[in-house]
């Protein structure tokens, strides 16, 4: 399994911020491992945001997340998104 680079993780944080139109979060303060959902991350997201992120990932990296159980695991944190992309991008 490929390990994602820090550059990819920063790219993902910027993609999330841009996709969701977030204006009040400094990308440098986003933790890579703290779950994005549930209120503990600087980026505190909800289930509607999740589908936006899934589609943004598909558009940007050509990786379709077809399995909903997998989708929950993938969008859990910046690290999990980056690992998925590093191993599945076209």
């Amino acid at each position, binding site marked *: 399994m490929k390990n994602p680079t820090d550059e990819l993780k920063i790219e993902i944080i910027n993609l999330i911020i841009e996709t969701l139109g977030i204006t009040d979060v400094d990308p440098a303060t986003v933790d890579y491992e703290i779950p994005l959902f549930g209120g503990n991350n600087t980026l505190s997201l909800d289930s509607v945001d999740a589908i936006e992120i899934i589609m943004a990932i598909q558009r940007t990296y050509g990786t*379709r997340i077809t399995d909903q159980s997998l989708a929950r695991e993938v969008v859990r944190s910046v690290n999990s998104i980056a690992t998925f992309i590093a191993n599945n991008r076209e």
Partner: protein
Amino acid sequence: MENYHHKMAAHCESGTVTALLNHGGLEITEPLVFGISGGIFFGYFHKTKAFSFPTFIMRNKPGQIRNNIENRLGVKFRTYEFRDPVKGQIQLDDLLIRKIPTGVQVDFFYMDYVPSWERVHINVHYLVVVGKDGNHYAISDSYFPAMVELDASSLEKGRFAGGNMSPKGFIFHLDRVPADIDYQAAIVKGIKKACFYMLRLPMPFLGIRGIRLFAKKVVEWPSFARDTEHLSHEIMKINILLEDQGTGGAGFRYIYATFLQQAAAIVQKPELKELSEELMKIGDGWREISLFSARIGKNRDLGPDKLKLLSEMIYDRAEAEERFFKNLSVAIK
């Protein structure tokens, strides 16, 4: 249970049936189970006794995946239903003592291992119970990445929850696997049935006609809502019905596309692979509808122009699916 292997799955019922078949020695994937059982479907219910607000389904009736797999593969599941929770627990415990992994129908809300914000009342969640230690059951829930534990009281609440489609303590386990299985015949039959249900049912609310009815009626949804909050909640539920609660993504269209990809090699029909790619794109369109519904619901942006746009997006899916299923029925002849 030492030789039981937990796996995540796209959908709880097909995942549970697959897990029991795999444990019984049958090497079959979840998409094959879903496709052979004719899991793909559409039904629109404008307003019925069971639903206080219009709703829709994207798969066949709960329980049909197990029933159809029995009929088409020749496997046999033994099933049990109970009125008395004590008898229900005794039977389950007896099966576990005999080291028989057992499928259980529950109300998802009582599954304490799921974070509270994800838990909703759904009486047709399926999981596998694989053991018991003291007062705790070992659970293989395909919704979850690893095996989990659940206390006996929570499992009982889940198994004997009331309401629409209540589980009534329903459990099942694999009883018999035939020596020879004709996968080609099972796949062909599963695809033919799916095409029949999508294209040829006479009822106007089922299959492709049902998608068109959904497209036509969604603009009337405001007349059923108490207020904007209620309407936005119901519009956002389109996203949940398409993407969440174990749908396999995009209203089960992705999992059926994966089935066609795998079926192409077994029945030696490369055109099924091409149709699989077409269905993936159709699934992308359903996912666009999920996102659009979620957005307008969340922003309370529910004017007639937005609902008209939503209606047009759904009409597009009806056109695309009609074309797809007609091509599929020709390919499988």
